[in-house]
């Protein structure tokens, strides 16, 4: 056990070489900061995301999981993934909706309390992507559930997802200022 602790304390923050460190890290940190204060404004500082896999090829899942590793660490900006749509504010739906998952995604949509946002991640979810037109797929989430925003990319890298989130929050923020 002691060796484990020593190892944790000894390794520095990130294993990526120093010079790239500040550039990449800086960018993510800047994007993260903006996301954080947007969330503070719109969601009182905490955004709960429920990730639904509607038959995706797990490409987008890898990226979403990467979001919560020690490098991207999306938790520090106030975002956390939850286990049930009931606890969620935002639904991240990945994958072209297969025939079996259609009912499940609709049920998840109804189970999420308002105010809720539906975001499709990856080209498959947007319009069926490479599986478009196949008999087993319903070509994108829009056919079954009203979708608010898209994050394109097949699969979008974690940074792309973060920037996508930022644009979503900014458009929501501008829409809200227009409304008031």
């Amino acid at each position: 056990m002691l060796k484990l602790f020593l190892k944790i304390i000894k390794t520095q923050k990130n294993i990526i070489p120093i010079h790239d460190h500040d550039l990449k890290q800086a960018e993510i940190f800047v994007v993260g900061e903006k996301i954080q204060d947007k969330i503070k404004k719109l969601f009182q500082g905490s955004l709960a995301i429920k990730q639904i896999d509607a038959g995706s090829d797990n490409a987008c899942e890898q990226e979403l999981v990467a979001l919560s590793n020690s490098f991207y660490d999306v938790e520090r900006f106030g975002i956390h993934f939850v286990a049930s749509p009931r606890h969620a504010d935002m639904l991240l739906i990945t994958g072209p909706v297969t025939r079996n998952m259609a009912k499940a995604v609709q049920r998840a949509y109804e189970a999420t309390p308002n105010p809720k946002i539906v975001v499709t991640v990856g080209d498959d979810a947007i319009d069926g992507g490479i599986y478009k037109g196949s008999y087993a797929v319903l070509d994108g989430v829009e056919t079954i559930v009203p979708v608010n925003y898209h994050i394109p990319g097949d699969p979008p890298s974690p940074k792309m997802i973060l920037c996508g989130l930022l644009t979503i929050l900014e458009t929501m923020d501008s829409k809200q200022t227009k409304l008031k």
Partner: protein
Amino acid sequence: MINLLTSGSGFFLLLLFYTLGAIGSLIFKKKDEWANGWQSLFAIVGSLWGIFFSISAFMTGDLSFAAYSSVFPLLSFSFHIDQLSAFFIFVISLITLFCSLYGIGYIKHYYKKYSISALGFFYHLFIMDMLMVVTASNGLFFLIAWEIMSIASYFLVVYDHNDVNNTKAGFLYLVMTHVGTAFIILAFLLMYKFTNSFDFESIQAQSVAIPVFIKNSIFILALIGFGTKAGIIPFHIWLPAAHPAAPSHVSALMSGVMIKTGIYMMIRLFLDILQPIPLWWGITILIIGSLSALLGVLYALAEHDIKKLLAYHSIENIGIILLGFGSALVFISLGNTLLALFGLGAALFHTLNHATFKSLLFLSAGSVINQTHTRNMEEYGGLIKYMPQTAFFFLVGSMAISALPPFNGFFSEWLTFQTLLQGMTSVNILVKSTFVLATGALAITGGLALACFVKAFGATFLARPRSTEVAHAKESSLSQLIGMGALALCCLLFGIFSGYLGSLFKNIGTHLTVFRNISLPPILSSKINFIAPNNFGSVSALALIVFLILALFIVVLLVKFVINRNQKTKIGATWDCGTNLTQRMEITATGFARSIILIFAGILRPSIQNEIEYRDSKIRYFPKSRTVTLRTRDIYRLYFYLPLNKFITTLSVRAKAIQSGSINMYVFYILIAVAIALFLS
């Protein structure tokens, strides 16, 4: 009026009410409604009078009178009502009042099936005899009343005789109670031998004359005899069979009050009559109490028949009462009468509480069975939407029985814990380890009882109906609701005013011989709260309940109306990871208790049996239905009662050879007998 109340004739008036009720209900053989009306009316009036009489008898103190001289020399129909019997009369009358109130509605569903007048007759006989049992002061008279009580309750148990295992349960009940009565008779005979009288006073006077060995054997005989009636662990197998068989308002009465008569007689014998008691009596009762409590609740957990579950809980609560009583015995033999009084107060308070919440639970279970026509909890589910009031009363009952604060169960368990805690500070290592064992058992029993009643309430009332029967269940009738409502109110009131009740139990104790000589009356409880001796701890029921309600009110106010004003609530489907939700997805009583049963597998010996039913013999892949039954083997029946039974049958078969069938042989035996008799004289 007052002197009528406090004199013997008041008691005879009480008995008169019940005799009239009994005879009256026999007259209305044909008309069911009349019989039901008559018997309920007389039972209610009788029990009301019983409550007034017991309270006034309680105030005036000792009251002893004889009915009339009997033909036989030893038997005298003499009664002696002191504080203890007055308290038990109060308990009996209180529970009879509510059970008869409930009975008006409940008996309706027996109308065409069975004879209501028989039910009325035995019901009144049963109550009358319980009253006589707790007031008799002559051994023989006590035994007669005890016997009639057992027989009357036997007829009530086998009342629903269409169902064959009711009659079997009735038979087992009859055999077991009579085995118990045999032990009691032996004990009385031993007492008679050394004090040559059956009156309790004279026995008590000459109790010093009884040699120690005889006194110990009397203790063991009485413990087995009254233990069988009270249902302590090794002799309990009749209780989960007999109580569910009886009609619900009778099984409420039986498990609420009848098993307490065993406790009453133990208190009367060990604390009042057979004074200077040795230390090991208290230790054995403590051990039996903790065993009964722990095993009772474990068997209740493994049970899926709702009334059997409640019957096993009676065993558990009897165990808790015995814990209080056992610690009182230990403290007396150690000479610490102050703590002994406190322990006795805990036992008596738990007797009262158990009578109220157990009968409440049985009554609500009765109205559930009344609607769903089955006792198996697996077929209930979602009843709270069809029977909201009954569900609420069952919830109150289960909160009271699992000792949750606002209700009375908690305060009596608090008292028992305080006595056990005091016991742990004693110096003698044997006493100390038994007290540690008892506290551990009581603590774990509390936790398991909580788990058991979450299972009972959840599987029966919550989630979705698991059988079509439940779909058309209707709320129970008005009289049933009044009966249950009053009992629930009693649970709350006894909880809130437990401080005041505590002081009453103090002067019950002081009138028993063993406590008569203590100098300073202990401050058991002031008006608002309990104070444990040498101020070991104190709790105030009133403050706790007010505090809880206040906090609840503020939270609801703050969250619902201040912070969350403009939020809407939408009614949606239960989220089950997107799959379509069938009622087979719900947790059943078996599923709930399975993990606890597997943990205690050593004691409960579960046997899991799953059957698969295929659509047809050829295709084995898609079974039509698959059922898993989890059953725990009843080790008492398996390892104690069956071998005993086998031994007796082999013995009797061998003895059968004597019956050769020819008369000459029989007369020859007579000859031999006469010769021996003459020879010996």
